[in-house]
C-alpha cells in the first residue's frame, strides 16, 4: 500500500494537472496489476459499501488516540474530515507495512462487514498500528468511503491510456459499466487487442458544453439538429444477447428501477444501444423533476407510484445497431436509424423518440427556447448534423443552450462550517425571504462565491452571531445575495411551502439592504408561471 499512499501524497501536494498526470502514469506503469485495479476503482470514484459507521470510528479512534470523545469531536470539527482527524490523532505507528493495496482491501477491508464488533475493532486498530502516517490517511479514506483526491475521471483515463499506449477513448469505454477490480481486469484494461467485452458494458456518454456565444456564431442553422434539453436522468439502454441493461450517467445499473422501460425494451432488436433521458412522463408531457426524484427515492415500486409517476425514455441517439458500433457515423444517419427502430416498436409508450425542435432560423429557435419553462425543459440542445458520437465533454459538435435561471434576492440567516477544503470556514448558508415581516428560510446554498468573498462572509458570521445551535449560527440578517435556481415546486416538507432546485449564489448584492430582499409571494408567483 506504500506505493498507493505515495501516489496519493503526490496527487495531493500539487495543483498542477501535468504533475498529477505524471504521478498517475508512473503509478500505473509500475504497480502490480492486482493493486493498480483497486487504485483505478477508487480513483474513478467507485467505493465499497461503508463497513464501519462513524460512531464506531469515533469511539475507537478516540480510545486509540487516548483522548475523551468530546475532545475527538472538537478536533473533527477543526479538521472537517474524519479520515484526516484520525490520521493526525493516532499515536506514532509501530511499523510501516510492506503489504500491498489489494491485500489490505481484499483481506481486511472487504471482510470488516462480516466481523463481530470486537473483531472489527481489533482488525482496525491492528491496521492503524501497522501503517505509517501516509498510509494511514489513505486507509482511513478508504474505510470512511470518502476517497477523493482531486483528479478527474478524464485525467485517470488519460494516464491509463499513456501508461498502456492506447487511445483514451478505448480506455474510457473499457472502464464503463460493471467490472470487478482484479489483476485480470487491469491487464484487460491495458491490453493492446480487443479485450473481452462485457455484454453489459455501456459506451461512454457524449456530453455538451454550455453555449456562451450567441448561436449565430455557430454558422447556419441548417447544419444543426435542435432538440429540447430534458431535465431528467441521462441514460443508456442496451439490448444484447436477449438481455436488457439500463445505465444511468452515474454508471449505475437502473434496469429494475424502471420496469416499464425494461419491459418495452424486450421488443428492441438484438444488438441495440440507445442514448436518451429518463423522464416522469404522463399524457404526452413531462412531469416536474421532483416527481421523478420521489419515485427514485422509493425502495419498493407499488402500483400507486407506477400509476402516479409513469416514466419514459426519450431517446435521441443510437450508438449500436445490429451489434455494430455506429458512433462514428454522422448524427443525421444515426437519427434515421433511431427513427426506424422506434417505428418498428409499434406504438411504444415508454421508449419514445425525442422530437426535434423545428426552427428555420436562429431567431425562431430563440423564440421556441423562450417557451422552455412552460414545457418543463431546461432549454435546447444544438448538435451538428455531421457530428460523430464522441467521448466525454468536447467543445464544438454539441452545445447546450439553457434558459437563464430564476433569481431572487435573499437574506443570509444561518451559517454553518464547511467540510474538506472549506473546513473551519462558514461556507454553508441558509437564505430567507420576507413573509409577514419575517424572514422565512427557503434555500440552502454552498457555491458561487469566490474564496475572497467566502473569507469575508466567514468573518461577518463570526462577528455577527446572534445564537448558536450546535454547529449552526443564526446571524444578523443584513447580507443580501442573489440566489439563482433552476426549478421551483410546491413542497409540504419545507416551512416556506416551496422547494427550489440547484440553488446557488449568483452574486453578493452589496448594494441592497435586507429590507429590499424579495418576498415569499414573489417566489410562489414563479410556480404559477411554470405550470
Amino acid at each position: 500500500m506504500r506505493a498507493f499512499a505515495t501516489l496519493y501524497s503526490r496527487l495531493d501536494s500539487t495543483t498542477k494537472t501535468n504533475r498529477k498526470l505524471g504521478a498517475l502514469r508512473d503509478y500505473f506503469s509500475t504497480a502490480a496489476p492486482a493493486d493498480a485495479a483497486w487504485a483505478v476503482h477508487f480513483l474513478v470514484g467507485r467505493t465499497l459499501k461503508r463497513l464501519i459507521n462513524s460512531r464506531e470510528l469515533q469511539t475507537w479512534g478516540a480510545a486509540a488516540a487516548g483522548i475523551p470523545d468530546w475532545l475527538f469531536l472538537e478536533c473533527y470539527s477543526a479538521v472537517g474530515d474524519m479520515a484526516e482527524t484520525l490520521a493526525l490523532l493516532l499515536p506514532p505507528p509501530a511499523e510501516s507495512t510492506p503489504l500491498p493495496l489489494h491485500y489490505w482491501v481484499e483481506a481486511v477491508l472487504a471482510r470488516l462487514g462480516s466481523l463481530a464488533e470486537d473483531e472489527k475493532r481489533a482488525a482496525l486498530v491492528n491496521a492503524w498500528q501497522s501503517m505509517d502516517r501516509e498510509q494511514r490517511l489513505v486507509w482511513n479514506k478508504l474505510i470512511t468511503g470518502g476517497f477523493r483526491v482531486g483528479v478527474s475521471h478524464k485525467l485517470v483515463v488519460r494516464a491509463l491510456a499513456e501508461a498502456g499506449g492506447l487511445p483514451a477513448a478505448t480506455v474510457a469505454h473499457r472502464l464503463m459499466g460493471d467490472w470487478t477490480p482484479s489483476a485480470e481486469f487491469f491487464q484487460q484494461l491495458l491490453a493492446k487487442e480487443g479485450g473481452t467485452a462485457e455484454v453489459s458494458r455501456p459506451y461512454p456518454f457524449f456530453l455538451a458544453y454550455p453555449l456562451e456565444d450567441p448561436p449565430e456564431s455557430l454558422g447556419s442553422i441548417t447544419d444543426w439538429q435542435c432538440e429540447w434539453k430534458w431535465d431528467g436522468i441521462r441514460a443508456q439502454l442496451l439490448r444484447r444477447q436477449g438481455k436488457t441493461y439500463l445505465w444511468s450517467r452515474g454508471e449505475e445499473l437502473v434496469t429494475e428501477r424502471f420496469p416499464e422501460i425494461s419491459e418495452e425494451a424486450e421488443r428492441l432488436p438484438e444488438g441495440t444501444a440507445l442514448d436518451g433521458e429518463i423522464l416522469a412522463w404522463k399524457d404526452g408531457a413531462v412531469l416536474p423533476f421532483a416527481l421523478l426524484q420521489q419515485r427514485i427515492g422509493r425502495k419498493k415500486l407499488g402500483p400507486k407510484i407506477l400509476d402516479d409517476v409513469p416514466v419514459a425514455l426519450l431517446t435521441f441517439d443510437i450508438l449500436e445497431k445490429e451489434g455494430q458500433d455506429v458512433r462514428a457515423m454522422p448524427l443525421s444517419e444515426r437519427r434515421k436509424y433511431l427513427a426506424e427502430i422506434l417505428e418498428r416498436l409499434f406504438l411504444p409508450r415508454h421508449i419514445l423518440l425525442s422530437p426535434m425542435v423545428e426552427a428555420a432560423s436562429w431567431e425562431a429557435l430563440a423564440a421556441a427556447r423562450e417557451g422552455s419553462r412552460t414545457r418543463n425543459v431546461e432549454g435546447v440542445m444544438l448538435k451538428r448534423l455531421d457530428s460523430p458520437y464522441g467521448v466525454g465533454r468536447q467543445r464544438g459538435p454539441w452545445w447546450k443552450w439553457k434558459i437563464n435561471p430564476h433569481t431572487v434576492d435573499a437574506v443570509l440567516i444561518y451559517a454553518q462550517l464547511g467540510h474538506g477544503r472549506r473546513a473551519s470556514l462558514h461556507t454553508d448558508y441558509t437564505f430567507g425571504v420576507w413573509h409577514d415581516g419575517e424572514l422565512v428560510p427557503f434555500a440552502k446554498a454552498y457555491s458561487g462565491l469566490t474564496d475572497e468573498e467566502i473569507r469575508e462572509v466567514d468573518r461577518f458570521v463570526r462577528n455577527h452571531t446572534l445564537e448558536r445551535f450546535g454547529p449552526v449560527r443564526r446571524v444578523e440578517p443584513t447580507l443580501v445575495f442573489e440566489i439563482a435556481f433552476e426549478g421551483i415546486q410546491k413542497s409540504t416538507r419545507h416551512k416556506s411551502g416551496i422547494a427550489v432546485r440547484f440553488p446557488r449564489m449568483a452574486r453578493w448584492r452589496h448594494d441592497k439592504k435586507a429590507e429590499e430582499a424579495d418576498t415569499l409571494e414573489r417566489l410562489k408567483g414563479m410556480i404559477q408561471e411554470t405550470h
Partner: protein
Amino acid sequence: MSAPLLTLTDAGLYCPDGDFFIDPWQPVSRAVITHAHADHARPGSASYLSAQDGVSVLRHRLGPYAQIDALPYGDTQQIIGVRLSLHPAGHILGSAQVRVERGGEVWVVSGDYKTAPDPTCRPFEPIRCHTFVTESTFGLPIYRWPAEQEIFEQIHAFWRENQEVGLATVIFAYSLGKAQRILAGLDTSIGPIYCHGAVDSMNQRYRETGISLPPTTLVTEETHKDAFCRALILAPPSAQRSPWTRRLGDYAGGFVSGWMLIRGARRRRVVERGFVLSDHADWPGLLSSIEATGAQRVLVTHGHIVPMVQWLREKGLEAHGLQTRFEGELDEVSEESESKTNV
C-alpha cells in the same frame, strides 16, 4: 482576599496595582508589550515597555516617535505596587512572557510562545507561578509539530526540484519572525536567496540586534527574472495575490505555517506545497509548558479556549477562558493582516 493582579478591561489586560496594561488594544498610558506582532503591539499608547531584544522590531512597528523603554530578560523593575520582569517566550526575536509579583503572589502572561528550537531568538523559559495566562492558538491534540529538521529537508527538496525544471521557489511566511527562522535554517549552498521588501526590512532589524542571518538580496523592479530561476525568494503571505509576484516569472510557491498541517487549509492556500513550521507551541508543547509553570490556575486566551479549559479542568487544574482580542481564531486572516502592515 485582595483584588486579582490582572483584570480584563475594555482596553485590554490591566494590572491595577502597577497601573499598566499588557498588549492593550486601545491606547493607554503605559503598555507592556510581549512581542511586536500587530495584534499584540498596537500604536497610540503614551509609553511602551519591551524586552531589550525586541526594541528594534517594535520600533519598526510603532514608528520613530513612540516612547519605548527596554528591559533586559530577567531584570526586575518595581512599578508602583508590583515587581515586573520579562522572560524569553521563544516566539520571535524579543518576545517575552510578563511576570508580575505582588507580595509573593506570581502571575505570568505568556504572550505567544513556542517550545521548538529557533536560532533567531532566546528559547522559552518556563517560569514558576500561581496563575499562568496561556495562549491556545494550536490548543487541540491534532496539532503536533514534526521535527524541524524534517521540514527543512522538505523545503530544500522542493527548492532543488524547482531548480531542475527552471522554476523560482517562493516561500510565503510571516515577515516578522517566521521568515528569519526559515532563513537561519536554509542550506545556502543550494542557491541564492532573495527577499521581498517586507521581509528584508525585518531582516535588517534582526541583524541590528545581533542575530546572524545568511546573506540575502532584496527583490527590486530592476532585478532580472533570470536571476530567480535557481533562487529561493522569501515573501509575506499577502504578496501571493499581489502583482508583485509578476516580477519573479514562473514560480512554484510554498506556504509555511502551523495551519499547513491540515489539508483543507493547505488546499485553500492554492500553493504547490505547505510546510508545517509554527511560531506557536503545539498541543504537547502547551501542556508541558503549563505543567512546568506549576500553576494551579490557568487562564486561556486566543485560540481553542473551550477545549483547552475543559481538558485542564479534567486534569484537576482551575482553568478559565479569557476573551481577549488577540486574533487566535482568525488564523489565516491574522497572518494576512500581519504582513500587510509590514508591506
